[in-house]
């Protein structure tokens, strides 16, 4: 680390294992009721519940780690961000083509019947699509 308090220690933890861990300069995620939040080093202690979202981790080496987080919690201190989620997927683990096909199928399904199950799956699908580069740019 270049400076002692210039970065955030980011950990993304699922029940099965630590999915991701690294140093970052900024983390953007979305809470259950409040919308998007960004955390920079030195942020006040924060505890939040997350909705299905596309979380961006701006790594210290300039890369961006995209993650689809499907519900979970974030715990933030001055020098660390910990994301707890029982279902999170890293960008590289998502099959972009399959997800786009799923989106069309789910939207079709919602037109004919109303189901909270399907709606939740669609929200997860949107998070995945966003994490893999959005609809426009074909990966």
């Amino acid at each position, binding site marked *: 680390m270049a400076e002692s308090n210039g970065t955030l220690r980011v950990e993304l933890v699922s029940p*099965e294992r630590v999915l991701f861990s690294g140093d970052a300069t900024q983390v953007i995620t979305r809470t259950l009721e*409040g919308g998007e*939040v960004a955390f920079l080093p030195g942020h006040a202690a924060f*505890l939040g519940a997350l909705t299905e979202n596309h979380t961006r981790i701006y790594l210290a080496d300039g890369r961006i780690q995209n993650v689809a987080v499907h519900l979970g*919690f974030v715990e933030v201190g001055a020098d660390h961000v910990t994301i*707890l989620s*029982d279902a999170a997927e890293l960008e590289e683990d998502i099959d972009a083509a399959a997800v786009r096909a799923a989106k069309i199928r789910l939207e079709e399904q919602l037109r004919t019947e109303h189901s909270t199950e399907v709606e939740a799956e669609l929200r997860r699908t949107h998070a995945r699509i966003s994490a893999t580069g959005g609809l426009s740019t074909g990966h």
Partner: protein
Amino acid sequence: MAGGQERILRGRIRSVQATKKITRAMELIAASRIVKAQQRVVAAVPYSDLITEVVRDLSAAGAGSSAPLLAGRGEVKNVCYVVLSADRGLCGGYNAGVLRATEGEIKADALAGRGHVVVAIGRKAESYFRFRGYNIAESFAGFTDNPTYAVAKEIGEYVTSLYESGQVDRVELVYTRFITAGSQEVVQRPLVPLEQEVTEGGDAKAATGHDYEFEPSPDTILETLLPRYVEARVYAALLNAAASEHAFRQRAMKSATDNAEELIKNLSRIMNRARQDSITTEIMEIVGGAEAMNSGN
């Protein structure tokens, strides 16, 4: 006559040898699975530690005094036991340990005037308690040697609903804790309502004392968090039980293999003696016959 006995013994040795091959293979499989199961236990620790910490921080901030999962009930009328056994036998005293511990608790409860409900995890627990006429609310099976988080979620949700609907006033987890490959112990841990010591700091790290900002409100976070916490606890127990099951099975199969070896040794000894006896008898007969012919001449 003597040759017949030898043939029978040879057949028995062959069958013991075949059994030994099987137990030996099972021993090796279990041994390799212990390592993997142990790694999964370790890999699950960060999540459960962190989620415990968050629950603690939230309670420190004053959330959840009204949360049903936190508040205990004054009078406990029915206790739910979640029993983690194996799907298969051939693992020594593994199943007997948890089953006996649970049965003892249920009997103690009955004496104290409390009712019981069993949630059986693994086929062995289900058949044991069903046969003895205990009250089984639900059983889950088919995954005990390799549990997934999805299963823990299902069990967690079921148990939580049992508690929230008022059918039970307390939920206890009974499982075999994996300490090392050489030592495991049957433990009973309260699952719901959540222990006071967990929420108040207790033995482990005390609450960090940060003044947290919350979004949404602490109560709302806690509401979504507590079910996850219960699931994480169930998941950790499932992983411990799986690792213990493999350890028990490895030990059981090792002693079965040793036993088979001993048996083969004894049987071979008896067989060799029988063969020697029959040879001796045969020689005696030949010699006797020759003598008789000689003396006849």
